[in-house]
């Protein structure tokens, strides 16, 4: 009995010693090796999901958001039956089985099958439990308003890389850095919470664009394109005092949700990347310069009765004979002959000086990619006839935005503002991290000159003016029409069929809320800015003033009592 007890005790002691020694081996001698092995089994590295910041209009309406989707990949080496898998997956995804089979049979251990598929489709494929298929969480940029403001918002590529517009210009704010995070998992592969958010969000961008105004602009632009069968068109609407771009549209345009299918000419932001000869809208230069330099007064007369004037060997014509016109009438009736005479009085140095003061030949600085500066040659390189041509808006190349900025200077009392499309950037928590503040705004002309020229521009949209079609019921419009020939690339001469018709102005004239330029490229049937562009201005202005609750100026009744409160 005692012997048995000794044996049992000895066995127990040896057992404990063995366990103790094994523990010493695990916890002391080979601790590092086993610890590393355990980490590899238990810890898993996961990507922090990167999400671009959102884009809003000036009233907080979403213009660019993210959708949570999944991307499907396959490991062809791990697939048991690629044929069956290809058949089943292609059926769910509505794709051709052959294309799917090619991916499932390709070499390598990682092949993208389909990027950014929606949750429902992903769930259906997951239920099939096909070996060798896997999913990665992904984000898809989605533009809920479709084509609306596509040239401002821009687009991103398949990997959410910025391609155009604000997406590109403000990419450093919108994108965010990713990185890795370590998560613990158990023997079944279930992950345990780390308590850390595995989503990193970019900053949100607030535009100056107003969705309502943008919609009005794009609707009327589509109507104009259809009516005049134009090759292209542009409208920009801006607050003339702050430079806030309220609406900005080009045609042709594209849907940023399918930007990869869009053609280059649809993606072209012609409002800032394409130059054209402005024609009569450029008469703002000679007109305001003449007032500023006190060369003329409103009643100074110009003999335009011949309907033509000869400058440096070339002849400049009016569309019809006007007789003797006052300075005011020269602008109102858009007389080429009168404007040339004013330009000749000013001289080429002063014409050039004021063109530069109004910002022509240099970028406006708008916060969109691809802006060009246009061009105007320095006076030393002008030909003998250039003074006449430039006075009526030929031999210069401008962008629609430059023209709008110049007229905004007249609207706001002579200040050249800086156009911009982003007003603020906020962190994901809503803390402002950037607010637009203009650099020092330059003065183009004195306030007095701007006021005088504004009064002249008002007459353009009245009876006898070329821009009567832009008149809005209830409010005065100030503006200017422009009709310019396009140079035919084949003949290198001015085309007799291709024109650019434009109207630029602001309303209400005395207290401007909006300044707007309308440019119609190659209209068919009619060519004059007053006919093709001014009515577009009118329609947009009428609806926009209503949208903005801008009061009519012709209402005499104020606070009429209609109901007695009981």
């Amino acid at each position: 009995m005692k012997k048995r007890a000794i044996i049992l005790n000895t066995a127990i002691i040896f057992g404990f010693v063995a366990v103790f020694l094994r523990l010493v081996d695990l916890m002391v001698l080979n601790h590092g090796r086993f610890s590393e092995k355990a980490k590899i089994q238990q810890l898993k590295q996961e990507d922090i999901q990167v999400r671009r910041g959102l884009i809003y209009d000036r009233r907080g309406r979403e213009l660019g958001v993210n959708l949570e989707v999944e991307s499907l990949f396959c490991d062809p080496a791990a697939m048991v039956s690629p044929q069956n898998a290809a058949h089943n997956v292609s059926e769910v995804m509505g794709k051709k089985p052959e294309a799917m089979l090619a991916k499932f049979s390709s070499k390598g251990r990682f092949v993208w099958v389909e990027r950014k598929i929606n949750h429902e489709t992903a769930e259906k494929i997951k239920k099939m439990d096909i070996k060798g298929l896997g999913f990665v969480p992904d984000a898809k940029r989605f533009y809920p308003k479709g084509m609306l403001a596509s040239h401002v918002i821009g687009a991103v590529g398949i990997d959410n890389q910025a391609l155009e517009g604000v997406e590109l210009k403000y990419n450093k704010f919108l994108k965010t850095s990713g990185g890795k995070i370590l998560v613990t998992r158990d023997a079944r592969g279930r992950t345990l919470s780390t308590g850390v958010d595995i989503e990193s969000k970019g900053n949100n961008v607030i535009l100056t664009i107003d969705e309502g105004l943008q919609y009005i602009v794009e609707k009327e632009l589509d109507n104009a394109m259809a009516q005049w069968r134009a090759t292209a068109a542009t409208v920009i609407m801006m607050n003339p005092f702050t430079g806030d771009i309220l609406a900005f549209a080009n045609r042709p345009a594209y849907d940023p949700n399918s930007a990869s299918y869009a053609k280059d000419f649809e993606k072209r932001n012609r409002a800032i990347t394409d130059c054209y000869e402005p024609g009569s809208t450029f008469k703002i230069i000679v007109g305001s310069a003449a007032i500023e330099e006190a060369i003329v007064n409103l009643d100074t007369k110009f003999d335009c009765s011949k309907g033509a004037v000869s400058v440096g060997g070339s002849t400049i014509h009016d569309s019809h004979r006007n007789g003797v016109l006052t300075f005011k009438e020269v602008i109102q009736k858009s007389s080429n002959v009168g404007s040339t005479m004013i330009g000749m009085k000013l001289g080429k140095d002063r014409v050039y000086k004021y063109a530069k003061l109004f910002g022509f030949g240099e970028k406006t600085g708008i916060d969109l990619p691809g802006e060009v500066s246009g061009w105007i040659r320095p006076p030393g390189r002008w030909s003998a006839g250039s003074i006449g041509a430039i006075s009526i808006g030929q031999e210069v190349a401008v962008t629609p935005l430059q023209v709008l900025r110049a007229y905004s200077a007249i609207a706001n009392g002579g200040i050249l503002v800086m156009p911009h499309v982003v007003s603020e950037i906020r962190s994901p928590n809503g803390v402002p991290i950037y607010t637009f503040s203009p650099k020092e705004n330059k003065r183009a002309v004195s306030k007095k000159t701007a006021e005088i020229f504004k009064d002249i521009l008002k007459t353009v949209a009245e009876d006898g003016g070329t821009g009567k079609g832009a008149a809005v019921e209830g409010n005065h419009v100030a503006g200017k029409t422009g009709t310019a020939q396009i140079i035919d690339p084949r003949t290198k001469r001015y085309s007799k069929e291709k024109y650019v018709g434009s109207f630029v102005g602001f309303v209400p004239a005395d207290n401007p809320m909006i300044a707007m330029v309308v440019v119609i490229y190659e209209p068919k049937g009619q060519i004059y800015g007053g006919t093709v562009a001014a009515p577009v201005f009118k329609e947009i202005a009428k609806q926009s003033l209503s949208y903005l609750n801008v009061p009519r100026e012709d209402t005499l009744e104020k606070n009429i009592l209609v109901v007695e409160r009981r």
Partner: protein
Amino acid sequence: MNHIHRSSIFSFLVVPVCAVLILFGIFSIVWLRASVRTAEYKISELDRKRMEILRDRKTLMAEKAGLLSIQSVKNKGSGKLVMVFPDRTKVVYVKKEGKNTPYKASLEGRQLSGP
């Protein structure tokens, strides 16, 4: 004699009490660790649900943005509901300046929201 008796009672109790305390300590540690692990699983599950809800929220936000777009509202309003945009010439603004003041109407609207 009494002293010897008391000492033997103490020595008799100390072993089981220590054993109970050690067992209780071990159990507490194991129980605590198990509870933490269970909580981690629960949080992990809640995280997953949260991500699903956030995904749905993002989808719904995008759908809402599409449905509330001016174009969509205009199409619905002018189609089924036969509504039109306000004509400024026909709009009358009704105002009330104080609690006990009469209502006033004007053709000149207050500028509600300028650009």
